[in-house]
């Protein structure tokens, strides 16, 4: 390339040009004056040479219309720049938005070569051979790309669009939500290109497909649909794409979690049918398993679909550890799930309906510790549960500096004070804290939150029906989950056979 070798040689005149240009840029009104002249020239050319066509545009759009549209749209923004480059017979006009464009790239790839290459023709063919060049599909697309960091260059009466965006959000973050002891420590970034890069760098297969769509009627965020075309379930993929087309025009979709909610078929739902994750190893594992991954620009979280109930109970570390350790950890998690769901309800059912179920010593000590408690057991449980929920909610919302205080104060309430005031029994304290701990054993957050709510359903039915109500509600929960599906895949189906046999059995 000419620019690289001759840059030193021409350094002096570049410097003068720079000087000229900066003074030129500072004066805001000047370019628009110049612009009028420029536009006249274009219209003159148009009259001379007939209609000018944009590159690869199907419908004929005179360039000056596009340009006037751009200036009209961006006129009021302070960071919109129209810059004329001119030396000898060479002229080019640059249109861009200063704040989203990478200044170094602009200087290196666009401005410098203009002054180094001998003719407009050379410069144009240089630009069209740059990899950053984008295909022009229409007026709207040009405007849209400009807001993302593309630059419009008018040279020799044609319009070129080049991508030189500057991204500040591409730093890869530490794993925050799903920490593991072994396994990758870095999660995703907030920039979609970096995230795709992260995924591609960990899954080297030509069958990995990345489709880009735009989502959000106002924000026009990029959405990447990533899957392995060899192993993906086509029916599921089609379903997901259909759903995306349905939600496409929602004005604002800011987070992946919001998109997850919108992708849900039912308006009111409790259990998640797709999974949010920030771990790249989980993403790769799921892509290899034939699932579809959605990445939304500006979000360090990806969405995996479809997801069934048991996915939410697995941690990525399950694959890294010895067999028996994994079995132990998994059973611990399910135990936590059961404890969290049933323990408060069990307390109510046992103390109020059937104290004889457990050993009579326990029955005696429970009723002994309830001496002085003025309310029936379910109010006692509700009181403690709600205090605990408040504590959890407060520690999520509070700034980290104050959160410590809140938990200490809350801990005091949940600790001995409530018992000494005879508001709850001592056993209740143990139950609430055991339950609170076991809620956090569930590895995926959304499922943990859902379980947190379902627990109140169990409590309600244990209150009105004792042990019978408890068991029936659990059966009802099984039925509710079995009746759900995640993008056509059964949500609560046990996988007892080998995986291939299961999938075959499902298809037939």
């Amino acid at each position, binding site marked *: 390339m000419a620019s690289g070798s001759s840059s030193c040689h021409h350094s002096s005149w570049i410097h003068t040009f720079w000087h000229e240009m900066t003074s030129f840029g500072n004066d805001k009104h000047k370019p628009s004056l110049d612009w009028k002249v420029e536009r006249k020239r274009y219209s003159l050319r148009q009259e001379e040479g007939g209609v000018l066509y944009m590159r690869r545009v199907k419908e004929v759009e005179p360039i000056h219309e596009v340009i006037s549209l751009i200036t009209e749209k961006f006129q009021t923004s302070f960071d919109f720049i129209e810059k004329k480059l001119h030396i000898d017979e060479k002229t080019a006009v640059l249109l861009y938005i200063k704040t989203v464009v990478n200044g170094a790239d602009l200087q290196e790839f666009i401005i410098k070569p203009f002054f180094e290459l001998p003719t407009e023709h050379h410069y144009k063919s240089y630009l069209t051979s740059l990899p950053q060049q984008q295909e022009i599909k229409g007026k709207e697309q040009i405007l849209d790309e400009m807001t993302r960091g593309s630059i419009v260059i008018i040279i020799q009466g044609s319009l070129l669009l080049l991508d030189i965006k500057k991204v500040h959000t591409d730093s890869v973050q530490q794993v925050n939500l799903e920490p593991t002891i072994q396994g990758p420590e870095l999660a995703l970034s907030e920039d979609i290109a970096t995230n795709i890069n992260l995924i591609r760098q960990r899954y080297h297969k030509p069958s990995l497909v990345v489709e880009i769509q735009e989502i959000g009627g106002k924000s026009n965020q990029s959405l990447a649909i990533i899957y392995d075309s060899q192993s993906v379930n086509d029916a599921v993929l089609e379903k997901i794409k259909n759903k995306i087309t349905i939600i496409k025009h929602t004005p604002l979709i800011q987070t992946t979690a919001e998109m997850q909610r919108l992708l849900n078929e039912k308006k009111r739902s409790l259990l998640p049918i797709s999974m949010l994750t920030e771990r790249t190893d989980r993403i790769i594992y799921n892509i290899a398993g034939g699932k579809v991954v959605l990445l939304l620009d500006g979000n360090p979280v990806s969405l995996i679909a479809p997801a069934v109930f048991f996915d939410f109970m697995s941690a990525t570390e399950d694959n890294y550890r010895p067999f028996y350790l994994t079995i132990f950890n998994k059973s611990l998690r399910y135990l936590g799930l059961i404890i969290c769901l049933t323990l408060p309800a069990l307390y109510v059912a046992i103390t109020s*309906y*059937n104290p*004889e*179920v*457990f*050993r009579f010593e326990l029955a005696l000590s429970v009723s002994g510790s309830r001496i002085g408690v003025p309310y029936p057991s379910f109010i006692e449980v509700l009181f403690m549960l709600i205090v605990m929920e408040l504590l959890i909610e407060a520690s999520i919302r509070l700034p980290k500096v104050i959160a410590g205080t809140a938990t200490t104060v809350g801990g005091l309430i949940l600790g001995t004070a409530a018992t000494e005031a005879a508001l709850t029994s001592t056993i209740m304290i143990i139950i609430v804290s055991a339950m609170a701990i076991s809620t956090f054993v569930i590895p995926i957050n959304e499922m943990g939150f859902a379980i947190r709510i379902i627990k109140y359903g169990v409590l309600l039915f244990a209150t*009105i*029906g*004792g*042990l*019978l*109500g408890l*068991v*029936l*509600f659990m*059966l*009802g929960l*099984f*039925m*509710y989950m*079995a*009746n759900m599906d995640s993008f056509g895949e*059964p949500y*609560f*189906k*046990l996988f*007892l*056979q080998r995986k291939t046999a299961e999938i075959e*059995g499902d298809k*037939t």
Partner: protein
Amino acid sequence: MSRYFYYLTFINTIASLVASMPKILLMNREGGAIVSILISIPLGLVVCYLIGRFYQAFPGKGLPELMDDYIPKFFKILFLLVIGIVWFAAGLLSVITYSFFIKRFLSPNANLIYIVSLILLFIYYGALMKTKNILYVLEIIFVLAAPMILLLISKAFTNNYFEMDFVRESIMHIQNYPNYNAVCAAAFIFWGPANLLIFNRVLKKKQSMTWKSICTIGLVGTIVLLAGYFGPIGMLGFESIGMVVNPGMTTADTMVFRYGIIERVLFVALMFFLTITFASILTHWHVAVEVFKKVVYFKKLRWRKHNLTPHLFLIVFWITSVKVVTYLTEYQLVKYTSYFYNIFPFLLSAMLLVFWVIRRRAKA
């Protein structure tokens, strides 16, 4: 066979263990109960095999669809109506039996109507689910409950208080002629596959009924029959068992988990059998609703895109259950259950006849 076939079969088998089956057998303990059991095993298995064989020829098709093609309409509607009523009755008897258990063993102060309504609240949701999803529910219930029930059965037989002498005494009565009531009650445990008349719709893969599957069903059925008959006799005594109303549950109440969190076996048994019975009611009423839908369907009874006909059936089921549960005594319940078991073979014979006609016409 598909594993879901076994769930359908075994849920029915285990649910019979706590229904009136043991009571009916034990009522005939000085009659021909043992011979009846011995006869019922081959009889039940043959019918089970025939049912399985028939449906394997038509993967993905339920009986109503097959009858559409090969059976005259008038007869079809009549037959389906009878099937629907019988399946509804099967579920009804389970609901009432279990409600009595709950009242007797778990919450004596509760109102029977309240107990029935609470159970039916969940059945109402379940019976309206998709057929395939019901199979998933059956699977999870079976996988959770079956090991526990196996443990309970083995506990009864390995117990120190299990007296072999009582069992020997009962075997002395082997020379008596079999009793029709006892044969029907015992053979019923093998007839879970009859539910395929609806559930075959979702078993779309080609099935094969082999000797292996028959042996498995035979083995499980035999264990359940022996446990249901000899367990109570060994624990409670050959003479005094006659005075017990619910032999299964009372036997469970004679045992303790010495190191368990829950000491009395009764409560564990009650909870796990509740899940199995629930699954059984769910299958029966789902079949009943689906069959009734083929008989009567009000196209205009709609509300927001949902047709309310199945809801109508379930509300009728609900009202009937509440009415019946207040009217029956425990003795009558056993008697009517026995009648049900006695009628069921006739229905099955008619069904086998229909199968035969369908197969002939399908081949032609």
